[in-house]
């Protein structure tokens, strides 16, 4: 599942991977490794369109991290006989993009010190780390936990063991420390990760997940109603089924929109020509 599937790299964890060999670099340049890895990463289920776009480059995850996150996400939302799951939907690409972007980099977090471990519950995030840093610090610890407890890295455990390992995270039974501290528990990481997987399955495909809207199709969400002219008012007060529920549409690309005034950079306030400025109030 890793882009360069070398058994010794898998079991060694991220720190002991060897630098790329000259041969490996040459084969990348030929594009062979990328294409093979792409289809391996995306799996069999995604072939609905004729020309599949190539997978995007990773912007944050190392290949080792990407493989780990893909396997963990698949345990949360599996690809099976019922339908595509996290691997096919591109959840790991979604999370990769999020961690490289402003949320993952903590641009909307107050990360000034001093920092204290809370004396009681209800204070939320109190560590000087961003979500991206948390992922990077946590995954090697989880890898050690899996190898110690189940004998192998998560990526090669059996599905039953994988489910148990994630359960251990969710209950806090897995004592994984970040930077030697227990301030951020494994249960905290699990809830963060699970939410990211759900986002990766159900956000607009523009963010790299929910490929071909497989997540929306699974739950029965029609996507952006604006794409069909916002017709819900015709249905909401009736019991008529909405005919496009299983045909979701994503956010519309800007170039495809008609009627956009070119060069309109600032919003204009709607002030109708007949707006009155008197202060008397009248009936509707």
């Amino acid at each position: 599942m890793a882009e360069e599937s070398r058994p010794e790299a898998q079991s060694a964890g991220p720190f002991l991977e060897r630098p790329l060999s000259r041969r490996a670099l040459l084969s990348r340049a030929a594009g062979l490794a990328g294409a093979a890895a792409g289809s391996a990463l995306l799996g069999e289920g995604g072939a609905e369109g004729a020309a599949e776009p190539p997978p995007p480059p990773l912007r944050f995850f190392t290949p080792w991290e990407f493989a780990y996150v893909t396997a963990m996400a698949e345990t949360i939302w599996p690809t099976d006989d019922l339908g595509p799951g996290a691997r096919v939907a591109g959840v790991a690409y979604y999370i990769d993009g999020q961690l490289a972007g402003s949320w993952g980099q903590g641009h909307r977090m107050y990360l000034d010190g001093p920092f204290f471990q809370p004396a009681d519950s209800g204070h939320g995030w109190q560590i000087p780390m961003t979500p991206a840093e948390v992922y990077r610090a946590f995954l090697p610890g989880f890898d050690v936990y899996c190898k110690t407890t189940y004998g192998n890295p998560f990526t090669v455990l059996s599905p039953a063991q994988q489910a148990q390992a994630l359960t251990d995270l969710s209950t806090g039974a897995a004592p994984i420390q970040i930077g030697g501290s227990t301030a951020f528990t494994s249960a905290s990481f699990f809830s963060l990760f699970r939410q990211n997987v759900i986002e990766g399955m159900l956000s607009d495909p523009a963010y790299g997940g929910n490929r071909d809207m497989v997540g929306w199709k699974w739950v029965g969400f029609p996507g952006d109603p604006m794409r069909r002219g916002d017709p819900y008012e015709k249905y909401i007060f009736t019991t008529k089924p909405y005919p496009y529920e299983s045909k979701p549409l994503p956010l519309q690309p800007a170039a495809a929109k008609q009627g956009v005034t070119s060069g309109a950079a600032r919003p204009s306030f709607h002030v109708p020509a007949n707006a009155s400025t008197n202060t008397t109030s009248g009936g509707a």
Partner: protein
Amino acid sequence: MANKKADVVIVGMGWVGGIIAAELTKAGLEVVGLERGSARGVGNWADDHDELRYAIRYELFQNVANETWTLRHNLQENALPIRQLGSFLPGTGLGGAGVHWNGQTWRFHPRDFTIRTSTIERYGASAIPDGMSIQDWGITYDELEPYYDKFEYMAGIAGKAGNLQGKTVPGGNPFEGPRSREYPVPPPPDTEMEALFREAATSLGYHPFYAPTANLPRPYKNPDGIERGPCTYCGFCERFGCEVGAKADPTVTVIPVALKTGRLKIIEHANAYAIRNDGKTAQSVLYFDAAGVTQEQPADVVVLGAYVFNNVRLLLVSKLGRPYDPVANTGVVGKNYCYQTGGGGATAWLSEKQFNRYMGSGANQVAIDDFNADNFDHTGLGFIGGGSISLGQSGARPIQGLSVPPGVPAFGRDWKVAIRKYFKSVVSIGFQGESPAYRYHFLDLDPNYRDRYGQPLIRITFDWEPNERAMVAFAGQKTLQIMQAMFPKAAKAGAAPYSPTGPDLIQGGPGSLPAHYDTVPYQSTHNTGGAIMGADPGTSVVNSYLQMWDAPNVFVVGACNFPQNAGFNPTGTVGALAYRAAEGILKYHKSGGMLV
């Protein structure tokens, strides 16, 4: 060098700033509005049905990296910063939270305005627990009624009156205060799940009604001549801007009216940090401009409409008014901070029945008022106050809207099956309760943490108290009862091991609040108090025109004026207070002096 002097400077261009700017400019005054965020309008929302961007990544809300608040539960703790948005989501930018609210628009009850007097009258002084500092507002419902009316007609609130001029009329809320006239717009029909709620509540002897909404069900032209089209029930309401202008929003209603007069100047990216004053009179507002350079806006009158936290912060930093000291029990600025008590809801997961759950509007709900305020006898219950109970259909979006019954695993194949099974089959009844004031719940300046400009953050001291816990336990019994009447064949969720072929399931019963107020899960953006109104300058910051007792040319307006929070959303009352303040400012500008 200071800006040219204005008649009035307003800090904040949300509902308060927008309403006051419109009223003052219509009357001929020159107004400068200082807005810390960007200008924006319906053009910004043309393509905004993006759940991740707006609802999860909080694009329209205040960025706490720049400015946040610290929280401690009591005086013994060190306050810690709220490092990510969660529990509440304050707005920023033109229109403020008026751009992305749900649109639920209420009038508080007559009793809410005289809560202390009324409670003691009915139950005796011992009904108010030690440490609870609820107090009367210094204005009555009847005095505020014309301003409620004005806000509702400006915004086009849709609903059905339950009390017209003292006479109960069918179809509305029989517990409401008297209205001088009907709502400007009639309500829409019930959706299917709302109809079930209405039927069940009626069968139990309660009095359901369509809850007042600022999401227009039909086109409307307001007294200012602003025309807006109806809601499309797209399901992207709270946390989103409304691209069709159906949701009442300051950028669509009052701000254009003010701008059209030519007498409102809005300065964007103006971060107000202090009010220059001599202790009795404000001279100007000091702010950091878009380049971070200090600027000064002088004015005859200073109006604070910057939401509860920054209104109080500006007063404290400027040393305007008497800061509240809870230990000595002296002072007023920062006193009586309150929130909204949520919990005690009920949820049903239906095995077969489906609803068009992803359709909705923010304020689309049917409610009962039977267990709010003092609308029921509290004898022997051990708490005072109550809340509104409602079933709403605001539009379930997929990331936030997944819901499975207890017993379903948190992940894996069975969870995957359950989220699909129930996506259109979840029904919730919610409770929104009063938040009483307490002596030791208050706002002051944090001694340790600062914002990006180096200004001290506001420190919140707040927690849940036994009164609210008992209230929520009680509410949970009522919401469960209604849900059981809606789905009588349902079994209790969690009683038996979960089966995908099992019956309808209901989770409910006595509601709970966590051990401590938790800043993480979203609860409500109804923060109130800190600059409370009252009849007595010894226990309030402003009078009934929202004029500071200590500084007659300063008006502080918003939910900060509430001495405690009622069991309803605050915006209707905020709007009414803004119209009341506008009237006061005009009077003051003409004749000066204390208005009360």
